[in-house]
């Protein structure tokens, strides 16, 4: 008799836990913010040149200025 009482209590607790999980899942699905994130399209690739200096336009690459090396003289066509 005591054994049967224990078994039905166990089943009740399991059913209650499953029900609680189902309710929580339904709440999460219903949250519009989470829906927006999960359904959003992939973001565009980040343009890091603009990302770090959004106020500036990109300029064509120019050769790196090399430090001027002191010379004793120069050879050139003569």
């Amino acid at each position: 008799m005591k054994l049967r009482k224990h078994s039905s209590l166990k089943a009740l607790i399991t059913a209650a836990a499953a029900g609680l999980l189902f309710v929580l899942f339904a709440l999460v699905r219903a949250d519009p913010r989470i829906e927006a994130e999960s359904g959003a399209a992939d973001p565009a690739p980040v343009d890091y040149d603009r990302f770090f200096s959004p106020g500036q336009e990109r300029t064509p690459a120019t050769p790196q200025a090399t430090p001027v090396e002191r010379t004793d003289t120069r050879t050139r066509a003569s």
Partner: protein
Amino acid sequence: MTSPSQAPSKRDLRAMNSEVELLCFAPDAERRLDRAERWLAAFEARFSRFQPLSELSRLNRASGRPFKASPALFALVKTAVALGRRSGGVFDPTVLGALQAAGYDRSFETLTDRGSAQGRGGAGGQGWRRVAWDQKTRSICLPAGVGIDLGGIAKGWAVDRLASMLGMPCLVNGGGDIRAVGRPGDAPGWRVGVADPFAAERDLAVLAVEDRGVATSSSLHRSWAGAAGRLHHLIDPRTGAPSRSDVVQCTAVAATTLLADYHAKVALLLGAAPGLAHLNDATGAEGLIVLADGSVCRSRGLAAYLP
């Protein structure tokens, strides 16, 4: 004994249609510089093809018959012919006719654009094969109608000679033809900038040079307008016309300035791949080639001169 730690005596001159710069560390620098200046004036009077009374002009007028030359002219002509042979005719001191036909018939300083110059049709090259001389009488016989233009190698020789007068260390720069003797102080060598032919104020490289000659040839310099377009002073003896090489500038480093001048000119006339091969194969010479598209090629051993 010289003292490289002290500032050198410097003298700037105008000769050979070029700016000439002399740097001397010797204690008696002023005396040496005076002597070098006098020697340079005498050199120009003797070897300029633009001075009608120069020894070189008289030799050219005497083509077809023996001409008794001074020891210096005799040695230079013999050297020029030897270099002609060594280069297989790519270097040819007898292209004077072609040079004049291209319009370079007077000092470049007085040369205006020559609308009638065709840029070809001059007395062909390979005249060096027929230059004869007699060592005993020191006489030279140019083939009839053939003239000599010692051009760059005479300037290179003059720079070498000037350097020999200034002691060690010293530096001579004759319009881009350089002889670096010794080294200034503790530096790894004299620092020689190689001018960018497309941006005159910029250097393509800086070489550290000790006891070497450096010279640069370029088809972008000393050029003028002719009937067939832009002409320049570097005649290709194989065509008798200004070179159409894809190399627009070559700088060579060699044991002497005369040899540097020779290697620079030959590599330019040969064109990119054979020119680079010439520099790689030449004993004791290295170089840097600039192509028409601005790209730069270096011979294998040039790195030894890059500090």
